[in-house]
């Protein structure tokens, strides 16, 4: 029983050690700007189409679902409010995080995992670079910087999707939709909507790097760590979401 519990505790401890070293290295020299920019391009710009697409559809679907409920209470003029609150607070950050976890935690874990099993990480250390500095820190910075931006874009596109349904099916005017959507948003919502993706990004990048760096057992091991990285980072997204939501709810 004790052995059964030991392994997850050990894994978590290793994760904390990697996280600690990564945070310490963020401000240390040398800073690999080229790697940071490349990762920003691959994580940020590369994820843009899928994030926008999913954002738009989540806005469309949610507005469709809400249209009947709102009509029951004769509150269709409030469509904008409901859509913007749920997208900015929850759907935007979480859906974007899940997409980034699926697309980038897996990408990071498989790339670093392949480097690990082909001894490229050892080679890096042998040839004078710290793999944390060269591989983990650029991915961490790039994800933490790009994910809030991607979330903001997903929120906006989601609101556009909602607007489309509100005009064509519910019969709102654009003016009515936008004014109710924007009026309801308080500072708390905006901060919440940007703090969440920032925290999700840190966890996604670190979990991806963590499982990549501890890959063993050849190509099979790479597949295994990729799967683990996606599953674990997705679970953490929900755990952190619950914690942060609780904090913000108690603040208001």
């Amino acid at each position: 029983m004790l052995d059964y519990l030991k392994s997850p505790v050990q894994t978590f401890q290793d994760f904390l050690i990697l996280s600690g070293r990564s945070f310490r290295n963020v401000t240390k020299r040398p800073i690999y700007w080229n790697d940071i920019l490349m990762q920003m391009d691959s994580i940020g710009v590369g994820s843009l189409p899928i994030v926008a697409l999913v954002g738009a559809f989540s806005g469309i679907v949610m507005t469709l679902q809400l249209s009947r409920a709102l009509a029951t209470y004769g509150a269709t003029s409030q469509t904008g409010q409901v859509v913007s609150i749920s997208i900015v607070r929850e759907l935007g950050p979480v859906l974007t995080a899940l997409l980034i976890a699926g697309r980038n935690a897996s990408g990071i874990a498989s790339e670093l995992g392949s480097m690990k099993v082909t001894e490229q990480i050892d080679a890096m250390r042998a040839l004078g670079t710290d793999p944390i500095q060269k591989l983990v820190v650029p991915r961490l910075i790039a994800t933490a910087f790009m994910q809030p931006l991607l979330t903001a874009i997903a929120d906006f596109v989601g609101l556009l999707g909602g607007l489309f349904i509100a005009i064509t099916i519910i019969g709102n005017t654009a003016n009515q939709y936008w004014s109710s959507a924007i009026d309801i948003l308080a500072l708390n919502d905006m901060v919440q909507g940007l703090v969440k993706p920032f925290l999700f990004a840190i966890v996604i990048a670190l979990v991806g790097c963590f499982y990549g760096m501890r890959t063993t057992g050849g190509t099979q091991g790479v597949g295994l760590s990729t799967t683990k990285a996606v599953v674990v980072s997705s679970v953490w997204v929900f755990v952190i979401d619950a914690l942060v939501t609780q904090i913000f709810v108690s603040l208001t």
Partner: protein
Amino acid sequence: MPEPILLFEDVCLSYDDKLVLDHVNLAVYPGDTFILLGAAGSGKTVLLKLAMSLVQPNSGRIRLLGHDITNLKETELFEIRSEVGILFQEGGLFDSLSVEDNVAYPLLNQKRLITGEAEIAGRVKESLEFVELGHTLDKFPSELSGGMRRRVGIARANVTNPKLSLYDSPTAGLDPITAYTIMSLVIKQRELRKTTTVLATHRYQDGTMAANYRWDEASNDVVRAAPYGQYANLNTTFIVMAEGHFAFAGTQQQLEASRDPYVSQFVLHQPPPKIGLGGERGHLPA
């Protein structure tokens, strides 16, 4: 007696309760060549990684170039590692970098070695020409054959003019002709740049070449240093590893004379004949 370049004192290492190195002692002096023979999993690779402190031992001390590297921080190790070249088993080349950038990598990233761009380009070219791959600068590792990747790995390991070169199974999985080329390059590096060499391999022929061949500048090839049937030795020590300890350490003559059933397999290339059945395998019983 000069100070050893690499010294293992009673080094033990275990992974998940499995003993990988069992009280290993080793002293490599400048100009020596060490050939580590051993079956897969006998601890050859891990010994080379310990020598560069890519892995830390559980107990014992390791001294590299006069520094005790057993408990040094990663940042303090970079300086010392820059004087050692290492070729990894599959080459360990960076897939995302071109051949030129791969070979330039140690020069660009090791503080002691950072120089002007022109000098780096010159040294990269020289190092690649040394392994006769001067024409592959712009290629990527995925475009090269297995033997060429190993040669680029040798160029990268030696571009810094290291005092000690470590080679991990440089000829594994290669055809005999390519394996011969790789070993010639190892010998060329050893002779022309006076590099101390530690080479892990499972091929006895690699050891024979290292012990008996010299680089001949005139013919641009290796030549035997002693007539056939005689041993040149050339400061070469053979070590046979078995399950984390040294089953044998000595010269080529001593190795060939060994009647230990495990050790002699590396010379005979087949399991030792069973007592009483010797004749059937074409060798005398032990």
